[in-house]
Structure formats: C-alpha cells, structure tokens
C-alpha cells in the first residue's frame, strides 16, 4: 500500500509542470549557460517561455525515440553537425519549409530536407605558442603531419565529436588513403597523450609542453578573455585551399512537437539578424548567417574563409572516421 501511494506521488512529481501553455521545451546538447541568455531574450520579446534539458546528443536522440509521440520536447539542439545528421536519420526531426531559414542559413550549413539548421559556426583550427612559432611556419592542418612538428603537436582525444567531424570531412574530401596518412602523421608528432578537452591542450601550449594544437577557436577566446597575457595565438588554417574546418551548433523541430508553431518561430528568430549576432557572441563563436559580422570580441582575429563543403558529410562519414582514428592509434 505504502509503495502504491509512493509510486503515485513519484508519478505526480514527475509529471507536474507538464501541462503549461506556450512553453517550448528544448532538448539541448548546447549547455544551458551558453543558450539561456538567448532564450531569455526571446521570452522578453514574445512572452513564450523556453525550458531546456541538457544531455549528450546520442542520449537525447534515444530519449526522443523512446518517448515517441509523448515527448515533451519541441526542439532538439546540438553542438555538432554529425549529431544533427544522426537525429535526422533516426527520424526524430520533422521537415520544415521555411523561407526565412533558407534565406538566412547557407545551404552547406543546413539539411537538404529541412530537418535541421546550423545556427552558429565553430571553427576548428591551429593555435600556437607565439614565443617560439612564427605564423609563416603554418599553413594547413595536413602540414602538421610533417616531420618538422615531431614532438610539438597537442591534440584532444579522438573521443570528442569535434575531432571525429573534422576527420569525417577530410575523408569525404580527400579519401581514405590520404586522410589516414595525415592522421598517422599527427599521431606520430604528438608531444603528449591526447587531452580530455581543448582548454587543457591550450594550457599545454601555454606551459611550453607543445608548440601547436588543434582546437575550437572559442576555447581560446574564453581563455584570452580571462588571461589576456596568455602567450597563445590563433592561425586560420587552409586559407589557400578549401578553407578552415567549421562545424555548427544547430537545431531542428522534433517530429512529435506539441508546440511546433512556437518552436518554428523560435528557430526562425534564432536565425534572424539580431539573434544571430548574440547567439554566437555568448560563446565567442561565429554567426551561421555570413552577412552578420562577427562579434567585436573575436574581430581582432580577422576574417577567415570557411570550408564550404556540405556539413552533413560530418554525419555520413563519422563512423568511418572513428574507425580510421582507431587504426591510426589516435587515443
């Protein structure tokens, strides 16, 4: 008996707050602290509340699949194109035909069928120790596989999806043989075992443990914001060729969204000129809409040419990329 009322209580607790009107629920891989300020702005403008539940994308996708039509989620937001592609393939996102989204977001940064849209650009490129490395020594990511960088390169773990998407895009562009030889070259040049995150890799450059590292630019932005004297600079790779590797933070509307209209409004609002500038600025990222100038915080790093290849390839080639990294011994 006691267990019964106990269970009822738990259910009630679990379901409370479920039936509020015009609240959009977002399952987000982008962490609350990097998105809540933007959502707050949206709420101020429209009166529509937004609440978030944060977890890793694969878990959120399984959760959406398990909850099915009962899901409270109206929108899925991730920090990697590969994850969005996965969500599209798994059938948890709905197709959207929105003129304003198509207008604002370049075709290479959104799904062909309109299931997901990139909202900010994240550039993965080279940072270097400015006490010992001159920018003239740097050119492409592939060149970091040359023997001259032996014992001087720091990488993050291959478990991070940012590296997987990078290698996936290389695979799609250059083919397996060439990509594998570059990746093997990187592994041979490592100065230290791969790091658990990008900030540690930048810290290792600052500490002189390595001379160059491969990181997302916003991590350096955050660290320079706190420590302006950090002896680390950024270099935009591959500017003579395909352009610097970019990934997206993006979102789509869930197949069983209850507030589909409001959620579409939010998505379109996020792609609007005003929100685009803010969305990227919160985290030193770049707007997905190329007509919006980068925030003043990162303007000092200059403009860069981004890779224009369809970002969906990051998802299509991800599993192959991971296997390649396993073979090459990138831990």
């Amino acid at each position, binding site marked *: 008996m006691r267990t019964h009322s106990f269970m009822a209580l738990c259910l009630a607790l679990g379901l409370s707050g479920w039936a509020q009107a015009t609240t959009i629920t977002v399952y987000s891989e982008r962490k609350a602290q990097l998105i809540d300020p933007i959502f707050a702005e949206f709420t101020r403008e429209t009166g529509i509340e937004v609440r978030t539940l944060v977890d890793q994308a694969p878990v959120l996708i399984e959760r959406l699949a398990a*909850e099915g039509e009962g899901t*409270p989620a109206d929108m899925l937001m991730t920090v990697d194109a590969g994850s969005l592609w996965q969500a599209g393939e798994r059938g948890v996102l709905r197709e959207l035909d929105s003129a304003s989204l198509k207008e604002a977001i370049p075709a290479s940064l959104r799904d062909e069928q309109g299931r997901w849209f990139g909202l900010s650009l994240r550039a993965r490129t080279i940072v270097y120790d400015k006490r010992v490395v001159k920018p003239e020594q740097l050119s492409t990511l592939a060149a970091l596989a040359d023997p001259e960088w032996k014992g001087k390169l720091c990488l993050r773990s291959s478990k991070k999806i940012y590296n997987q998407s990078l290698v996936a895009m290389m695979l799609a562009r250059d083919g397996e043989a060439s990509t594998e030889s570059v990746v093997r070259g990187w592994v041979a040049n490592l100065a230290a075992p791969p790091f658990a995150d990008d900030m540690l890799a930048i*810290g290792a450059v600052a500490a002189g443990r390595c001379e160059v590292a491969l990181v997302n630019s916003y991590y350096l932005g955050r660290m320079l914001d706190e420590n302006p004297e950090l002896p680390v600079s950024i270099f935009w790779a591959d500017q003579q060729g395909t352009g610097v590797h970019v990934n997206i933070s993006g979102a789509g509307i869930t197949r069983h969204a209850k507030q589909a209209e409001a959620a579409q409004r939010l998505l379109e609002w996020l792609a609007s000129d005003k929100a685009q500038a803010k969305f990227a600025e919160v985290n030193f990222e770049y707007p997905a809409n190329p007509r919006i100038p980068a925030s003043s915080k990162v303007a000092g790093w200059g403009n860069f040419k981004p890779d224009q290849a369809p970002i969906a390839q990051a998802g299509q080639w991800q599993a192959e990329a991971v296997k390649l990294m396993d073979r090459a011994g990138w831990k």
Partner: protein
Amino acid sequence: MLGRRLGLLVLALPVLAPCLWLLSAWQSLDVSLWSHLSQHVLPNSVLETLAVLLGVAAGTLLLGAGTGWLIGRCEFVGRRLWEWLLLLPLALPPYVLAFAYLGLADYFGLPGRVLRESFAIDWLPPAPHGPLGGILIMSLALYPYVYLLLRESFARQPASLVESARLLGLGPWASFWRVQWPLARPALLAAIALVSMECLAEFGAMSVLGVDSLTVVLYRTWFSLQSLQTAAQLASLLLGCVALLGLLVALSRTRLSYASLPRPRARRRLSRWQQALAWALLATLLLFALILPLLQLLAWASTAEHPVQQYREAIMASLKLAGMAALLALVLGLPVALIAAQQRRDRWLMPLAQLGHLGYAVPGTVLALGLMIVLTALESWLRPADAAPWLLSTSVLALLLAYQARFARLAHAPLASALAAVRPSMREAAQTLGAGALERSWRLHLPLLRPAAFAALLMVFVEVIKELPATLILRPIGWDTLATRIYAYTSEGQWDLAALPALLLILAGLLPVAILARQR
C-alpha cells in the same frame, strides 16, 4: 518457499529487465564492426581495464587495509578523530577528483599559478593520465570502502584465536598470516569486489583521464561508431565478467559462519615515534584524497561568477532524490536481507538475492538506457490508447528504479553483515520460546538491525547524491541535480564554474558520511 523466491525475483526486476534488454541485443551481429573492435580497440582496452582493476585492487588494499589495520588494531592519540576523518573522501565522486587533479596539473592550476606568479618558477606537477592515472585517482576515491569493511573486521577479531596461536608457538608474523589474515579475508574479498565493480562501471573519471576501459569503449561504440546494439552486446559481456566476480566472492564466503561473537582483542598501543609515523602517513593520505582537490575546487570557485539561484533548485532536487532512493532501498532491502538470513538452507534464495545486486557494476548509462526502453514498452502495453502519455521512461519513478538497481547492493551489505552477527543461539532461543519467522524478524532482528539500517540509508544517500550517468538520462524536466550541473560545466571545460556545484555536492555528501562515521 516459492513465495519468498518469487518476492526476491520481483525485487530484482529493476536490474533484470534492463539486463534482458542487453541480452536481446544479440539477435544479430555487426560482423565488420566487431572485427574492427577486436582488431584495433579491444586488445588494448582489455589490457588497460585489467591493469586498472589490478592496480586499484592493490592500491585500495594498501590504503584501505593499512588504514583499517591502524584504526582497527592500534591505539594512538587521535585515533577516534582519524577514524572518521578517513571516511570523508567518500563524499568525493571519482569524476570530481579526476578533474580536480587535472586542474592541479594544469597551467592555470593552483601549484603552477602560485609558483609562476610568486616565485617565477615554471614548473607543473605531472598530470595523471592513462591507466596509471586511473589507478591513482580511483584508489584515492575508493579506498574508504575497503577501509570501512576492514576496520570492522580487524577491530572485531577474537582475542582467543590470536592468543591460542601465540601460545602454540607462532611468532607475530606467522600468527598474522595464519590467523588474522584468514579471518579478515572474507571482508577483504567483499571490499575488493565492490571496488572492482565501481571501477568497471566508472565512465566519467576514466574518460577524463584517457583510460580506454571497457566502459569507455562501450560509450564510444554507441556515441561515435553509432551502434547502440553492439554497445549493448559489449555491456552484456561486461555483465558476464561481473557475475563471475560475484560468484567467486560468494563461493569464497560459503564456509564462513559466526558461531559466536567472542571478546575482541585489545588494541595495540603504539610507541611515540610509531604514533608520529602513523599521523604522518594518515595526514599524507588525507592531503591527496581530500585536501588538495578541495583547495583546487575552492581556488576555482572563488574566481568565477556563479548562477547561485539555479543551485538552490539543484540542491533540493539532489536531496529529494537521494532521500527517496535511500528510503526505498531500505524498505526493499530489509526483507531481502531478512529472508536471506533466515532461510539459509534454501539454496535458491542466496543466488536470487545476489541477482538483484548485479546492477552495481552495470555502467549507469547502460542500465538507465535499458530501463528507459523497458519502461517505454511497459507504458505502450499498459496505457489506454486515449490516455495522455505518462512518460514513465523519463520520470522520477524511473530514476528511483535505476538507483535501486545500482545501489541495492550497498544497502544490503551492512544489513547482511549485521544479520550475520546475530548468533544462531539467539535465534534458537527465540524459536524455543515459540516465536515464528515473522515474530523473530520483528522482535529479534529488527531491533538489532537499527544501526545497520541507518548505515544503509546513509550509504545509498551519498551514492545517489554522487550519481551522474543514470540521473542525466532519466531525469524528467526540472529535475537538474548538482551532479548534472557539474556535468554541464565540466563537459564545456568550464571548471571554475563547475567547482561551486562540486563543492556543494561534496558538502551534501560530507554530512551523512560524517554521521555514518561517528555512529559506528
């Protein structure tokens, strides 16, 4: 008889149902993925996992048995203080310890910063990494389990046996190896099994430290190689190892029974320099297991601006979940322990009771995902087509089931050992006086169990406060806990922001640990 067996089976359901899901994953096999894994990933992973298991077993044994022996067998100034100080690291989850240590070794860490800015010395402590780093961190995080179990065992050693051994001509070493050691062995094996299971299931610390343990490979197979099915197959293999481990422990235990509780041996008084040495050793251990990580967390927490308002809700969510889970574990654990203790002749009961404890070693994510899928199926079967969705699969109920599956074993351990200490003669006396099984439970066992029940409550409470993976997956909206807040920051590398919720989490765990320690 049948009723009891069925009862135990039902109580084991939160563990069994996800495990059945794991087994059902074997319906088909992705041959090319398996050949990739077995060629390029698994050989190294198995080696690293074994290295960490052996290393942590040795490490926790060294730290836990050493401190357990000092506190349990020796008398020195401040022993009672150390008795509970040594338990405090129990409040630090391994993933917090791991990121605190990475921070200590980082360019912006406390030592590096102080040396650079105050003394202009460019020196950084070596960063813990790989299997060696894993062994270090997990040993520091897990030694209190071994300490707790062995301290009791050492303190309760019957004087008569050791005295007889000495009278029969054995020297101190020989009497240690031939009498004291065999007496402590069951507790020791139980402790090592517990620690090994924690290590097998740990994901957070292992992945931060770059250990390619089997659990890390399992996540990689799901998240990166995009095969949930192969990941589930890996998980079921992992489960097989754990079942084997549990069986070994159970086998080593069967011959042991406490016929009587004899007079415990007097503690040995340490000489003055021995006392100084003991203090130095204990203080060093506490420095590495608690103080240094705490200092780094404090240093981080003081530099960042914190969204304090969010934490009030997170604290409440953590406390509510931990409280409910602890009560549930006790309510469900008591009958299991009582049945297992009273019906020793039924050889089906022990394995059935053990079955419910398998979940301790299943990685939280796997268990949670299994529960999520099973509950989804249950809901679609039970719910009338026109009713509003219950969302059983991501509810507080689902969370409590997951905690029950993970931590039933922790509640069981103190209850079972307290019941084992109930002498057969007491039960026989009660029986002679005409008390049936139910009355014996009520009037004899329960009163004797009160301290153990309290310990069980606190153990589960602390573990649920620290639990991350299952909470992350199953929590309904609005139930963000301290642990999930920490995750949100550490996964973005924002350690300074993660430090405050981590400190709050440690604080929330320290209180019950301190009570637990003082009460014993």
